């Protein structure tokens, strides 16, 4: 109330500051992180054959919906993208576009040997690594990984969100993007 002026300065900046202040407060921050951790909805993007095991992971025997994770329809409403195996050049473009279409905060799991390091197709001219296309949070080895491994990845991601916070995740994502742009130059 200094100077008796409240409505002063850049409105946009002020709103952002207020929002930031609000979101960074302890209880609200915790609640948001808790809600995000238990609501990791993977987008429906089948990049390759590991999708079979993704299906099995959400099927009755392993039922990843227990952790609050529900495969959902379109990129706009989801916050997790699971790269299920090989990314071919044609699919990598789609994966990148899908990732960009998703609303923040968003997370990436690279599932299977092919997504991590090419796997069986390590010397194929048509295969790219997931980390070349988008910042990856969790890696699951195996070809294909068992559904338990996917469950473990989701649990690990939940831990990560609740321990390290969302703003840290955003920061890391920006840094890795800058790093990738720099390295491509």
């Amino acid at each position, binding site marked *: 109330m200094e100077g008796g002026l409240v409505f002063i300065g850049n409105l946009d900046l002020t709103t952002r500051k207020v929002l930031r202040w609000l979101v960074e407060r302890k209880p609200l921050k915790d609640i948001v992180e808790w809600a995000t951790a238990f609501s990791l909805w993977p987008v429906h993007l089948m990049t390759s054959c590991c999708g079979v095991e993704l299906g099995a992971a959400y099927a009755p025997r392993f039922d990843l*919906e227990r952790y609050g994770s529900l495969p959902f329809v379109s990129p*706009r409403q989801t916050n997790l993208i699971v790269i299920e195996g090989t990314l071919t050049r044609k699919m990598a473009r789609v994966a990148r576009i899908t990732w960009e279409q998703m609303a*923040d905060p968003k997370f990436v799991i690279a599932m299977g040997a092919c997504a991590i390091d090419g796997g069986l197709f390590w010397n194929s001219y048509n295969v790219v690594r997931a980390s070349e296309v988008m910042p990856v949070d969790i890696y699951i080895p195996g070809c294909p990984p068992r559904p338990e491994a996917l469950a473990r990845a989701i649990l690990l991601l939940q831990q990560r969100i609740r321990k390290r916070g969302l703003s840290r995740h955003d920061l890391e994502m920006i840094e890795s993007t800058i790093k990738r742009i720099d390295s491509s130059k």
Partner: protein
Amino acid sequence: MIQEILLLKELLGNNEMIYRTVIGLGYMLIYPGLIMIVIAAALLLWAERKIVALVQLRYGPLWISRRIGGALQGFADLIRFSFQEVIIPRRSDVIPFLLSPGLAILFSVLPIAFMPVSPYIKPPIHSDIGLLAAIAVISVAPIFIVLMGWASDNKFAFVGSLREALLIVSYEIPFIISILSMGVMFGSLDFYEIVERQSLLPGMLLNPFAFLASFIAMLRVTSRFPFEISEAETEIVAGPYTEYSGLMFGLSMGLAYIKLYVYALMVSLVFLGGWLPIVSGEGVIGGFLIPSLIVILKLTVVSLVAVFLRAVYGRYRIDQAIRIGWIHVFALSIVSLVWSIILVYGGWVRWA
């Protein structure tokens, strides 16, 4: 503190206007209005996933709160959506895009203003044509769903909103006819009289055709299986909601459940006898809380049956659904109307 409350009570007791405003606002915003609806929608979201999981040999949401079977899941999803980024597509029609989910919810919640849940506290607008008014208001909501699809500038959303428009016409009409046939039978459009007159037999036994027709129509209007055609995910992604994200999608997702709450409330008042067997009561607890909980219980049963059908059915094709709507459900609603007229003019039912 106590003094202040007493003072308030005195003040309210003396001033009819303020009393009614406070009660009305509480009715609309807290219970059984908006906040109750949001809680019910979140719980219904969870209950749907749990019931479906039972049929599908699995647990459903669990880990979020193991002791109560993961009942917080719906809240977590809603909170997550509320704090996610809202993306506004560049080519969308911004104002309708932003306004229509809220307006759709507004028009879905408004009918609560006409619908009583207890004999003691009356709804904000107590009218003797409450049934008609409630139907009229809630029929406006689908227009905003159509608007959502239109404003998104997405082909799938466009197709979805077209489907919604087509289907709404073919199912709203049977719903209205079958509900009004109950009005014909009870000789009244006032919810209080309708509930009173079911003290001997509930409406669903007096006119089973109307109950069946309106239940099937309710399934479609609230977009439940097997009529979940406008959001058919494997065909047109999420239909009208395809481009919505963050809070806006949270609203749109809640919309179907809010509508289900309101329609189920209407069905339980008209067909299941509302707060009966309690006829009348005094005081807040006996006259409002217990009867309203009975209504909520009946409403919950109706909506649980509606969400259970997800586990049994796939979805119809749009032409099949329209054919069913115009041939079977419409015919059923006409039969229910004729049945009501026969009962009334044949002298089978007689109201004082």
